[in-house]
């Protein structure tokens, strides 16, 4: 954001009286320039959220191509209290998020620290590592479905080479969730790597040189200079990635569809099924609102903890 004084130079509301319609319009440029953004946000974010609130206390049914809304009071809430799948979905999602985000942060940070030491080839390497970030998650799911294939997937071929029994990676209740975690770690580590590398490359060089002159070892340099300087980047990345891991949908949809049983049921998948598989729009809306609140609480708590910590330090 610029200083207000600079902005004032462009705030021509107090300008001369407009001579023509064109001038009148131009003096209000900043209004109509922002108007499309506001219209889109009002129509496509605020309106759906208001609808979500109404839906959550309604039963929505479809008859002869028409949509019928009926107020149903607290019915959806009672359904929620009796629902055993949603808690399972939350548990699976939280477990998923904790494991993949921890692994991705550690691997991404280590790779970035290493890459920052390598002078040549970084452009090419970075491009290769970035491919998964930009590829459709559905394509990634397809690729891994074939890698996990029972008959000819590379994992089972590998096991066979060591005379070990092949595994049903996506079909066993024990292995399905870890299998999806592996896909997510493969998918998103490069993203953490990218953000960490950008952070490392923008660090000031002077403190490191000073530490070097004072005879710091590599480990001391890393522990007492680089990581503290990098902390703001790490904290923002951690929150961002956590929020996004919480949304996981595409790969699970393609690899397991939530199964076997509810072993890989995650929040997004379950809400989507309530909405469209079971046509329970009202109950899906209630679950959506709960999910939005969970997200908001997490963001607020996280920011508060981070702020307290940085003010204590």
């Amino acid at each position, binding site marked *: 954001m610029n200083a207000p004084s600079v902005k004032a130079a462009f705030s021509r509301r107090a300008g001369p009286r407009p001579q023509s319609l064109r001038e009148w319009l131009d003096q209000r440029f900043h209004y109509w320039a922002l108007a499309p953004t506001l219209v889109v946000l009002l129509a496509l974010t605020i309106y759906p959220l208001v609808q979500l609130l109404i839906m959550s206390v309604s039963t929505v049914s479809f008859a002869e191509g028409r949509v019928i809304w009926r107020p149903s009071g607290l019915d959806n809430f009672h359904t929620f209290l009796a629902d055993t799948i949603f808690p399972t979905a939350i548990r699976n999602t939280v477990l998923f998020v904790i494991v993949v985000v921890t692994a991705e942060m550690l691997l991404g940070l280590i790779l970035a620290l290493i890459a920052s030491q390598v002078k040549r080839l970084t452009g090419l390497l970075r491009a290769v590592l970035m491919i998964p970030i930009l590829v459709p998650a559905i*394509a990634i799911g397809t690729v891994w479905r074939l890698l996990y294939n029972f*008959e000819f997937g590379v994992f089972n071929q590998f096991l066979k080479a060591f005379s070990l029994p092949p595994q049903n990676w996506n079909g066993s209740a024990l292995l399905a969730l870890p299998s999806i975690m592996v896909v997510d770690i493969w998918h998103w580590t490069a993203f953490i790597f990218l953000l960490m590398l950008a952070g490392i490359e923008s660090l000031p060089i002077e403190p490191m040189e000073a530490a070097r002159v004072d005879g710091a070892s590599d480990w001391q340099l890393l522990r007492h200079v680089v990581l503290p300087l990098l902390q703001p980047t790490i904290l923002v990345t951690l929150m961002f990635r956590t929020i996004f891991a919480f949304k996981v949908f595409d790969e699970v949809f393609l690899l397991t569809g939530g199964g076997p049983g509810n072993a890989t049921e995650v929040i997004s998948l379950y809400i*989507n099924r309530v909405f469209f598989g079971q046509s329970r729009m009202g109950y899906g809306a209630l679950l959506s609102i709960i999910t939005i609140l969970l997200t908001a609480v997490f963001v607020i708590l996280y920011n508060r903890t981070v702020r307290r910590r940085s003010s204590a330090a």
Partner: protein
Amino acid sequence: MILSRRWSRVGYVVLALAAFITLAPFVFTFINSIKFYKDITSGTLVFQPTLVNYDRLFFSRQSAFIVNTTNSLVIAVVSTVLVLVIATLGGYSLERFRWPRRFTGILAGWILLFHMIPGVTLVGPFYLLMRSLGLYDRLLGVILSHLVLNLPISLWIVQSFLADLPVELEEAAHIDGASNLGTFLRVVVPLIAPGLAAVAILTFVFSWNEFLFALNLTSTKAATIPVGIAKFAQQYEVRYGEMSAAAFFATLPAVVFLTFAQRQIVKGLTLGALK
């Protein structure tokens, strides 16, 4: 950062390994996509390459992949153009003009919250909205959803490019008598062109990749490539060759963009995440 020299040698090995792990699944998929069925299931390394999977994927009568591809292209291009226009104008207005602080604060908070909540929470109301507007299974319905999904990150990229742009150039244009619109079009837009390129590429790629909204706002006519792939995978469990071909084809835009515009992509992704 400066560590001891020996780390750079370790670095090459580790990065080469990371690159291999990243690329291997794609190579595996590409190889499967040019194999006959019997060579896929036997897992052989010696095989007669074939294009039959691509041929079936695009030209067989049951396959809707050409329709899916056209839909994906139209949706990605149109939503990208809309996002570019709306985010550039909006970002400029927010960044360079004086708005009440409370208004911009609420707006920024709202955009951030919207960006963070899982998309699935809005897909239900979106479905009902598009149905009532007659946009269900129409390209426009998907375009609108991709427009709003990509608006937050695009606004942030535009705003941070503007924040790095010295305001004096715009002041000079004003002194020379340029209008607000003229300054915007002839001075600002050309100067933040690299930022707009980042916005365009990321919006295109994200739209091309997006699955959840495309899945629920379409059935057949407006289905995109990810929707097509997912339905194909569910319907024809064992047509591995065509699945591989489709997955490989869907990754091509990412590879093309990374070849030609890596810097813009890195900048855009970093700005969009660390804002």
